[in-house]
Structure formats: structure tokens, C-alpha cells
């Protein structure tokens, strides 16, 4: 075998464990889900094997699913916007800080050491009727009765922001950290104020990081079901909750498969659009 041929094979040999894992753990289950989506659930809960379009017809034509999907996209968009507004200044502060950058990044990563469910449930102890916020306000005499703050769409968004903010900060930080600070100095020396230098130099250069963080926040936010389940009221369901219900409560795996594929396609299209205009390289940097 020639040296060139050996060198051409080497990346594939190194990649093969990861490719095998992805094939077995992602693509094979995905194929099963696609097959399942064409089966039917019988009255006893057993699955009827065959090729039926009923689940797809229901998922694509029933306004119930469309409305919940639109509401999910709305909640994910609001969450992403809040994360961007809150995350950018934090990332800027970390990127421009001198000496303690590592500690600040460590602090940013700290929440990941605690289970996502525990972090979500912690809001019950903060915003609940007997929670820290109400107790403090009552102790200060500001309110006489506890305020009902939990179990609505706002607390769902709050829980999602709590979960997703570090993803935004990390992506924006990676982008800002790669910008040469001399560029801002050059803009200042040419007469630009600090604000103008930021708006015309730093912000445009950091937009790929902001977009990568936004994509991650949006995709992860749109696919969650724990947060609305723990912090939402009776009507605050997201699309992933429908998948959960179809599969777990109704034992309707075929319909649940069709719904999960529908969500996958919608979010996949967003990723493709992102990739078309910005490329995946920035996202990989942020995740790395």
C-alpha cells in the first residue's frame, strides 16, 4: 500500500469508533423511529405493523399540533433572545477581564455540576408561596400575602434561561476572545468613541458566536419537556411534552414517533439554514 493510500485511510481508522457509535446510537434508532411512525396503535396498546399514513396525516393536518409547535417555537425564541441580552455582557466581561478569566469560566461551568432537574426544581424553593422570595418580601413587610409566581409561561422561560444561559455565554466568549483588541484601539485612535468601536468593530466580529449560541439555545429550548412539566401550569405544554404523552401516557409509540420526527425536521431545517449562512465551524468552537 502506498504512503498516500495509508495516509488517506488513517483519518477513517481514527474516526471509526466514533462513527460506529453514532451509527449505532443515533442513525439505527432513528431508522426504527421512522419505521414506527408508519405503524398503528391498536385499542389494547399493542402496535399494528404495516405501512399506514394515519399518524403523519394527523400530525401534519391537526391544528392542535400546529398550535403547540408554534407556541414551542415562540417560547424558544423568547428564551434565546433573553439569553442573548443577558449572556453577551457576561461573555464580554469575561473575555476582557485580566487574570481571573479561568475562575470566571469555572464559575460559569459550575451549574453543569448539578442535575438539570434539580436546577429546575430549585425555582420552586425560590419563587414558591413559601419560597425565599415571598418569605423575604413578607419579612420586610412589603407584602402581606404571598404572591403566586410559579406555574406559568414566564416561569417556564425563566427555567429555560437558567438552563441555557451558559451555552450562550460560552459561545459568545469564544468569539470575543478571538478578536484582536488592537482593532478596538485602532478604531479609537481613528476618532471612534468606545461605544462606536464596540458597535462597528467588536459586535459585528462577534456575531458568529452570538448566532451559534442562539442556535444552541433555540434547539435545546425547543426540545425540552422537563421545564414545562416542573415549572409550567396545566396549559403550558411544549411540543416535546406531546411526544412524551403520546409515548408514555397513551402508549401510542407510532404517533409519538411521527411527532418526534416532525420536531426533528423543523429544528433540522433551522440548523441547515444556520449552516448555509454561517457554517458549523463557529458552533464547534463554542462547543469545544
Amino acid at each position, binding site marked *: 500500500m502506498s504512503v498516500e493510500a495509508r495516509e488517506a485511510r488513517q483519518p477513517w481508522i481514527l474516526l471509526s469508533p466514533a462513527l460506529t457509535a453514532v451509527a449505532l446510537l443515533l442513525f439505527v434508532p432513528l431508522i426504527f423511529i421512522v419505521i414506527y411512525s408508519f405503524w398503528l396503535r391498536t385499542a*389494547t396498546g399493542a402496535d399494528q405493523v404495516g405501512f399506514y399514513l394515519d399518524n403523519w396525516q394527523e400530525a401534519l393536518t391537526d391544528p392542535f399540533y400546529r398550535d403547540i409547535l408554534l407556541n414551542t417555537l415562540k417560547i424558544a425564541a423568547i428564551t434565546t433572545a433573553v439569553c442573548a441580552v443577558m449572556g453577551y455582557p457576561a461573555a464580554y466581561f469575561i473575555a476582557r477581564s485580566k487574570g481571573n478569566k479561568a475562575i470566571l469560566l469555572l464559575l460559569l461551568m459550575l451549574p453543569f455540576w448539578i442535575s438539570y432537574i434539580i436546577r429546575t426544581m430549585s425555582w420552586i424553593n425560590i419563587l414558591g408561596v*413559601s419560597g425565599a422570595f415571598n418569605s423575604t418580601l413578607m419579612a420586610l413587610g412589603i407584602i402581606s400575602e404571598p404572591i*403566586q409566581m410559579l406555574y406559568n409561561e414566564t416561569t417556564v422561560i425563566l427555567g429555560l434561561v437558567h438552563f441555557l444561559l451558559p451555552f450562550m455565554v460560552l459561545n459568545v466568549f469564544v468569539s470575543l476572545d478571538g478578536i484582536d483588541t488592537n482593532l478596538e484601539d485602532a478604531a479609537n485612535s481613528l476618532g471612534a468613541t468606545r461605544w462606536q468601536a464596540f458597535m462597528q468593530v467588536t459586535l459585528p466580529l462577534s456575531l458568529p458566536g452570538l448566532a451559534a449560541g442562539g442556535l444552541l439555545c433555540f434547539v435545546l429550548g425547543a426540545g425540552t419537556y422537563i421545564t414545562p412539566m416542573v415549572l*409550567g401550569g*396545566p396549559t403550558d405544554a411544549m411540543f416535546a411534552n406531546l411526544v412524551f404523552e403520546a409515548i408514555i401516557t397513551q402508549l401510542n409509540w407510532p404517533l409519538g414517533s411521527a411527532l418526534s420526527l416532525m420536531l426533528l425536521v423543523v429544528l433540522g431545517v433551522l440548523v441547515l439554514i444556520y449552516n448555509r449562512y454561517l457554517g458549523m465551524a463557529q458552533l464547534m468552537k463554542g462547543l469545544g
Partner: protein
Amino acid sequence: MTRKMDNTTRYERLRERYMNGDLDRRSFLGLIGAAGLAYGVQTPFARFAHAQEVQQVRFDGWGGVVSEAFREHAFAPYTEKTGIEVVDGTFGGGDEYLSRVKASQEGEYNIAHLSGVFDYARYHNLGLSTVLNEDNIPNLQYVIPKLIDVFRNVSDGKLSCVPYDYGTTGLAYNRKYISDDEAKEKGAKLLIDEAYKDKISGWSDWRTRIWYAALQTGQNPNAIEDMDAVWDAVRQHRDLSVKYWGSGAELMSLLAEEEVYVTEGWSGRIYALQEQGHDMGYIDPPNGMGWQECLFVIKGSPMEACEELLNFMLAPETSIAVAEGQNYPPALDPQKVDLGDKIPTLPAFDPTGKLDGLTFADPAYWNGNEQEWSKTFGRVQKGY
């Protein structure tokens, strides 16, 4: 009734004879080898006979105080006696667990603490049931006959489970805000009382929501005639509720933290709250929801080891200790077994052992409507 000797006892006796010197080493090893050969020959996986030795049984239950009671009073002593480890798992609801079992390989899940004859019928209809050798469970004789018969009716006279306890899903309310008189007077309609808007909750289980909506609209839950009225009542309750709860722990937390003043709740969990010092009231409205729980052996399980565990758990001393720990009356017949002092004080307890005062869900009726009602509830729940 003669009891067939289980493998554990058989090997224990053999070892005892060898240790006492009644059996020489050659004979002992020969008998062990013969047993292994016989076991190996009868299975298609003879060469893996050693690996098939039952070392553990998986048990799945409702978690919280219920699982704590099982662990302390049943599993630990059973493991000590038999050497078989009980792997103790939990689930939040019967639907979720059934989905897990459906996705699993045979033998992965063994015994489940299932609720209601409804679930028993679903498991049976999905081909997940087994046939218990009742000779291996002599303690079954102490169980209330009515509780056994309903299971037999579902599975052609055979049993895939043993009844274990029973309880009710009644009205639980905070006495600081709602008096006993008010709760009795309003009954199930307390859950749709505008005066408690945003202080009401309920279980996210579609059966419970429909059952209580039937009571709120003056209908028999086992023969509903006006389903539109029921859905309207479910919507009314949804709009007044701050949140649906999804587990016993969440139910207890919502009441204890005073996030809600009234909800329907599981009798044992409310009793646990009362024991913790919370001033909770609990009543079963007329036609309130009664249920029984069973220990169900799932297809593919090691039957003898499971039957031995079931027999151990049905032994009066174990069953009573578990019942006192989980606050649900045991399935033992009070006419045959002295249940002690605490159990007669538990909610839903029936001293006659006939259970005539409780209304149970008709499994055929509820299973027949499951597909349509669970789906519709999923929509109503989300504001439709």
C-alpha cells in the same frame, strides 16, 4: 395443601447435610452437579447454566414512603434470608412504567407494584402476564378473597399477581383554609369551586380527572352517559388549577408548602402528611375512587424466586409492617389476621374485609375507552 420446596431451601438443606457430616464430599458435589445438569438440560442455554442462577430480582414501585417501607420491612429481610438481592426501582405512574416494560427485553423487569385491576388487565392484554404457581405462595390464603377474584376474572382463573394493599383517591384539603364541614358539603365540587381559584390542584392522570368530573356532574364513573358534561368539568377544573401534580412526592410538596389548598390525593400520602404534623383533611366523597394494588410478576421473570418473594411479602408480619410504613391497608383479610393497632386507623380501611364501601373502576369499561379518553384529555389539558 402441600408446598413445593423452592431451590433455595433445597440447596440450603443439602449444604446443611454436608456440613453436618451426613453427606460425604463426593456425594455432595455429585448431587450439586446432577442438579446443575438437570437444570442445564431443560434449557436451550445449558452451557450458560451457571450464569442463569438467580442472584437478584428487580422490583419497581412508586418511590417515596412506599418504597422506603418495602426496603425496610420486606427487601432487606428477604435478602438476608435468601441471599437474593432485590434491585429496587421506582416509577412515577403506571403509564410510564408500562412504556418502559414494553421497551425492555424479557426478564429485565420482574415484579411491579401495579395499581388497579385496570393496569393488570392492560398488562395481561399485552401478553406481559405470567401464571403463578399458587402452591409456592401459601400466604395467599390470608388475602381478602374479593381482591383475588377480580384478578382471576381478568386472566382466565389464573393469577399473575398477588393483591397487596388498597386505598382511595379522595379529597385532600388544608384545614387552615377549608373546614371539614365545607369539604363534606361540597364533596367533589370542591375541586371546581371558584373561591379557591389558583389554589386547586389535581393529578394529571386522565382516569382520575374523568372520574372526578363524573362525580362533579352527578354521574356514575363506571357508566358515564354525558361525556360532554364531563369534559366541561375537566376544563373547569383545569382553569381553576394552578398545576397538575405528577407524583406522590409532588402532591405532598404542593400541599405541605401551601401552594394549593385542595386537590384529590392518595389516602396513604395524605396520612403521611398528617403524621408529619400538617393539618390536612381527607374525605372520600360518595362514589369516591377506590383502588387496589398488586405485586405483578412480569413475563420472563425467574418464577420461583419471584413467588418466594411474593410469599415472603404476604407473610402477615411483613405485610403489616409494610402497610404501617406506607399507610395503605394491606390486602390481608381482617377476619383472618390480627392487623394490629395502626392499620384500623388508616384511611379506607374496611374492618369487614368485604370492601363493599369502596367503588372500584370497572376494568372493561375503562380499558374500552382508554384510547379515546386519554387522547382527548391530552388536548383538554392543554387548553382545548
